[in-house]
């Protein structure tokens, strides 16, 4: 059984990883966006850390997660903030009213987050956004958990899928957001959103950071 304190700890770790990736994300975003992806990630992370510190997980994990999402959005309302807020709200919706969770519910939450982000941002897989790392990760995790694998094994499968997803869109053109306006010059460049998601997962799972492009033949 997974408890609120476990989730709170994971979210804290995730937030710390965003802060640690600040400069890297800014740099990637400067090459194909407006260079603020790290700044807004840091702001959002600090917002959620404050929320977590002030709000220990209560017996309704769903509502508690949705409010965490709003805290992230308030602190960093731009693209990534709206996406993160939506992700947390949709994940929360999956477990509304519950105080403890089964492993499988983690997989369902991740997939709900991915669908939420796609609905909110209107990006599909292949548009070269965070979705390209997140959605395959969610699918891999859910499949592994449905297969009876442990949470850790499933999470590692998710990470591998996320890394592959990140790398699979490096060569294509961004189709959405600011990067879309940069157009063909985005070909060959790494999408900061995918790096953000992979890096977060790596940090949570205590894995070494991988280089973008490392899974490519």
């Amino acid at each position, binding site marked *: 059984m997974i408890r609120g304190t476990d989730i709170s700890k994971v979210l804290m770790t995730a937030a710390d990883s965003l802060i640690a990736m600040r400069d890297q994300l800014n740099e990637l975003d400067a090459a194909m966006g407006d260079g603020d992806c790290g700044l807004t990630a840091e702001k959002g992370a600090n917002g959620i850390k404050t929320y977590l510190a002030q709000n220990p997980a209560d017996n309704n994990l769903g509502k508690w997660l949705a409010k965490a999402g709003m805290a992230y959005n*308030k602190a*960093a*309302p*731009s*693209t990534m*903030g709206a996406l993160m807020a*939506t992700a947390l709200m949709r994940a929360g919706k999956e477990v509304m009213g519950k105080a403890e969770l089964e492993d499988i519910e983690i997989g369902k939450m991740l997939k709900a987050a991915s669908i939420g982000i796609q609905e909110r941002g209107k990006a599909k897989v292949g548009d070269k956004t965070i979705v390209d790392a997140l959605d395959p990760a969610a699918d891999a995790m859910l499949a592994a958990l449905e297969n009876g694998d442990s949470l850790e094994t499933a999470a590692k499968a998710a990470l591998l899928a996320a890394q592959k997803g990140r790398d699979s869109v490096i060569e294509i053109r961004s189709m959405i957001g600011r990067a879309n*306006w940069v157009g063909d010059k985005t070909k060959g460049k790494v999408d900061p959103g995918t790096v953000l998601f992979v890096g977060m997962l790596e940090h949570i799972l205590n894995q070494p950071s991988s280089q973008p492009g490392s899974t490519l033949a």
Partner: protein
Amino acid sequence: MKKIINKPEEFVVEMLEGLYKAHPDLVTYTADDLHCLVRSDSPVQNKVALATGGGSGHLPVFLGYVGKGMLDGCAIGDVFQSPSADQMLEVTKRIHGGKGVLYIYGNYGGDVMNFDMATEMAEMEDIEVRTVLVKDDVASATADRADTRRGVAGMVFAFKIAGAKAELGASLDEVEAAVTKALNNTRTMGVALGACILPAVGKPGFHVADGEMELGMGIHGEPGIKTGPLATADEITSEIVETIMADMPLAKADKVAVMVNGLGATPLEELYIMYRKVDELLAQKGVSIHRQYIGEYATSLEMPGASISIMKLDDELEALIDQPANTPFFTQV
């Protein structure tokens, strides 16, 4: 950094404090949040309420167009950053006068997502909300992908048309239709000669080399369609007007409204030199300028550069653009 500021992180809040002190008769804020700006007399009952929002650093855009004959409220973000869905919701609740709310704002991912979240929340409170996105920047995408274009100075035309229509008592459907038509008839393109400095960063986030220009650059430094040596005012103006007319053909006897907009550091004198050429080019085509706006209407802090917007008018748009308006930054009699 050539900036008159205090702490960079207080930039937006102090600007807003100055604004509310300067114009208490015209604007105030709601929900105890300076970022939620509304007309002092809001809600205006029995009028469609109009809201916008977006990042700071573009004065008079966005908040400068809240006032009689224009908008009812504006959610204000940090410099070049979207405001939050919460803030948009608060503005929406405060300005709603019983005839629905129309959101009019630029097509930027963060803004769209936050406004969409605000829309969902507003609907839970039984407020009918519609959205019209401004996508007037021809340089930001080719015609086949026009739906992904950015919103720039042309949004001021949208505010003006929507504001006049709402002021005349139109329904939400009618206001939405008028502003949609206005935007279908509006194209903008700009040129940047240099960068601007974000207060929090203290140095330019992008560069235009000295002696170079970037045609079609976005108001946050998004890349344009052509980088090259700085051309003359006439050459720049011709290229912009031609690009606009290739995307939106204009014919003999058409009437238009024109905006020559400074991005921040470009002197008014230079905008008039550009306007001179716009007038000449349109006259050659037999197109007449019904009304013109020359000055700083949508800026990017101290960016040197300018944009030209053209809105094709029909009888309805002509009548609406001529209506009076009075906001802290825009007075038309």
